[in-house]
């Protein structure tokens, strides 16, 4: 299997099939680890970096992960392949465009990836659709322990798992949920979400696109503190406290929209559909923005004849690298906008 084989379908984590996925699109847990006896990346020579890559590859590839995983030599991959993996959230932008020997071990279901030689020697992640953080933790903990039987992690009795940046030290855990909060945005209550995040010492980022800007009302919410609490405690804070609170805010806002502002909602959805169905040029930013309204419309039961699957597919497959790999040619931004518009038209008008 190779990265391009993934380019034609929606990632499982975005397919909307998980528990509560109309609001909590997906759950992800990442662990940062480093090998004992090796410098961190900033001080690691290319030769030793290659050694780290080999060691971790050998430790991870034979593991029983429930499916046959494959290795991607990120350093040797084309820019398009690198970007495809970034768009699918399988590797980070930093990893894609980093330098030196580095790679990724990927499960074809995309529920598991290991980035080797990103900011730390090893970053493993488990991804699931909907709110399934506890399941993510159980799975990643098992995988982490299995890797640990084969390699020595840099571990300190006082500081725990040692990481290149002290913001990850201790558990090395990053717990994230991807959220779709269009109603909070539309009712002018998105501050409720930002305040809840700030009170919980959590970080907010966008889900799609280049920067950290949240496009199309999609947000990623993650913990910042990695030291001084156990992994279970950190997960529990999300599952028991933060996620229910934000879900409740968004659900209440959706109810308000349906009971008090139904014309405004329908107008927004239908205008979005109108543009999507007729545009001849559309940027990925605009597409995300409009598709977000359509996704909300479907989840509120205000759209007939368009499936959530179709919309999810468009979110994922209209991203620049996906578009180019699937058309088989390198396209500049203007051409991409035309191809994207055509793809959206044919998908939505066929429904």
């Amino acid at each position, binding site marked *: 299997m190779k990265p391009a084989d993934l380019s034609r379908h929606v990632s499982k984590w975005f397919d909307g099939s998980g528990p509560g996925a109309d609001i909590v699109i997906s759950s992800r847990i990442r662990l940062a680890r*480093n090998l004992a006896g090796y410098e961190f990346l900033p001080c690691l020579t290319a030769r030793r970096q290659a050694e780290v890559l080999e060691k971790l590859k050998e430790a991870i590839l034979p593991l029983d992960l429930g499916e046959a995983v494959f290795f991607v030599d990120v350093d040797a991959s084309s820019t398009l392949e690198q970007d495809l993996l970034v768009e699918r959230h399988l590797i980070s932008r930093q990893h894609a465009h980093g330098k030196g020997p580095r790679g990724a071990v990927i499960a074809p279901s995309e529920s598991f990836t290991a980035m080797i030689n990103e*900011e730390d020697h090893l970053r493993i992640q488990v991804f699931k659709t909907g709110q399934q953080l506890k399941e993510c933790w159980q799975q990643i903990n098992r995988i982490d322990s299995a890797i640990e039987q084969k390699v020595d992690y840099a571990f300190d009795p006082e500081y725990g798992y040692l990481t290149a940046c002290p*913001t990850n030290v201790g*558990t090395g855990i990053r717990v994230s949920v991807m959220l779709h909060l269009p109603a909070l945005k539309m009712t002018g209550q998105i501050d409720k979400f930002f305040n809840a995040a700030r009170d919980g010492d959590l970080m907010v980022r966008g889900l799609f696109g280049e920067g950290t800007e949240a496009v199309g009302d999609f947000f990623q919410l993650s913990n910042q*503190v990695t*030291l*001084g*609490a156990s992994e279970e405690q950190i997960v529990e804070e999300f599952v028991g406290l933060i996620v229910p609170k934000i879900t409740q805010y968004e659900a209440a806002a959706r109810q308000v929209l349906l009971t008090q502002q139904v014309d405004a909602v329908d107008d927004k959805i239908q205008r979005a559909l109108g543009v999507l169905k007729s545009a001849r040029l559309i940027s990925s930013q605009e597409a995300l923005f409009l598709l977000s309204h359509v996704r909300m419309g479907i989840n509120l039961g205000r759209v007939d004849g368009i499936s959530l699957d179709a919309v999810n597919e468009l979110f994922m497959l209209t991203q620049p690298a996906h578009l180019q790999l699937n058309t088989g040619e390198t396209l500049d931004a203007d051409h991409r906008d035309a191809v994207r518009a055509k793809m959206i038209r044919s998908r939505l008008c066929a429904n």
Partner: protein
Amino acid sequence: MLCQSCNERTATIHLTEITEGMRAETHLCEACAQKQGLAVKSQIPLNELLSTLLAAQTESQGGQAPAEAAADIRCPSCGMTFQTFLQKSQLGCPHDYKVFDEPLKAIIQKAQNGHARHRGKVPASAPVDTRDQIKLMNLRQQLEEAVRNEDYETAAKLRDMMENLQ
């Protein structure tokens, strides 16, 4: 740190302005910052956040700041200095956590909400203690050199020593 404007809420927004070489700092809470029309980025990349913390740390403690006094500390294993770490916010090797000691601990506590001790998962295998890690790293480097010099007798000895440590 309290907000300089209202003196009530905790200051969460720290501005550093440099005008004609003069550095001025303002510490505000979110409400006062908004009143003053300051646009606040709601998402700050971790590295940026850490740099801000590092700057605040150095400033708040004046000339005698441990962070400044520690600037020249150099890790014997990887060569990283504390100064370089302050600039790049990434450490050079696991040993740095011991070498940079207290000044680093102060930064960790700031970044980690006051915490300085791990309370989570511990590897099932007996943790390689930090001293062993340094030894291992040094041995590995020596081993590399021995192999490069085709000194296989030394290399074999080093390998045995490493195996004993592991």
